């Protein structure tokens, strides 16, 4: 059953990611990205990472994409017009490189690289103690310093977004103020 769930959500993820990249209207691309994020959250649930799955919906689908949609609606963009020879050339090169990298990755991958030393947090232990509790315990003990740093990162981003988004006052406004 887990394999079936993986197959369903993986298909939805790949299909919506392709639509993000291929579709011409930016708002539809944003909505497909939301679908991709939700299917990714479902995959996280299949991987027993409940906290990360819900934080994915809360932060990515619920906040970041809303911000994207706000900006898209504010800019009032229509369908992308991408015709002409240089676009065709760019498309061929882009897809060609993508395909090449994929083939390279598939050929280079060795299964023995993906088996490392097993950690202590076995699925039974995590299920007994609770996923969120264990993540919280790790976050506030071993990863405390990066956690505090991310609060600084967010503060800087907030200040930066407000300052940059406000823009510079034009000459006329400065005389009136």
């Amino acid at each position, binding site marked *: *059953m*887990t*394999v079936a769930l*993986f197959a369903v959500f*993986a298909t939805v*993820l*790949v299909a919506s*990611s392709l639509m*993000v*990249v291929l579709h011409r209207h930016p708002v539809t*691309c*944003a909505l497909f*990205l939301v679908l*991709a994020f939700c299917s*990714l959250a479902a*995959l*996280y649930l299949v991987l*027993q990472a409940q906290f*990360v799955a819900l934080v*994915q919906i809360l*932060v*990515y689908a619920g906040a*970041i994409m809303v911000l*994207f949609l706000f*900006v*898209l609606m504010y*800019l009032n*963009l229509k369908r*992308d017009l*991408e015709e002409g020879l240089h*676009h065709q050339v760019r*498309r061929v090169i882009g897809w060609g490189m*993508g395909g090449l990298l*994929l083939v390279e*990755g*598939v050929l280079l*991958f060795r*299964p023995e690289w*993906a*088996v*490392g030393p*097993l950690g202590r*947090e*076995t699925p*039974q232990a995590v299920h007994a103690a609770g*996923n969120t509790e*264990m*993540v919280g315990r*790790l*976050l506030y003990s071993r990863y405390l310093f*990066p956690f505090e740093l*991310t609060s600084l*990162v*967010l503060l800087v*981003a907030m200040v*930066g*977004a*407000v300052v*940059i*988004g406000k823009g510079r006052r034009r000459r006329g406004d400065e005389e009136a103020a």
Partner: protein
Amino acid sequence: MTPLPAGPPLAWYLGLSAVVFLIGVVGVLVRRNALIIFMSIELMLNAANLAFVAFSHYLHSLDGQIFVFFVMTVAAAEVAVGLAIIVNLFRLRETVYVDEVNILKG
């Protein structure tokens, strides 16, 4: 409720992560709209997150999920600042196509 039965091997998850990552790379290379490029970058970040969570599950270590948490935070910060820049650019140049912002003047 009991945990789910054993799922597909790790290689499938890594393959899926690689495919989504490469779709994001192609998006950055092919599209001209700055916002779509931004969305492709988010796809790449999420593909990396998927690899992290898959490893966390198969190697019995929660460090992967902690990293996902940090990646999400940094991605949120990056989106906020990046969209502010794009809005400012639009105000200045009336366009979001990266091909048309090729003059440093102004």
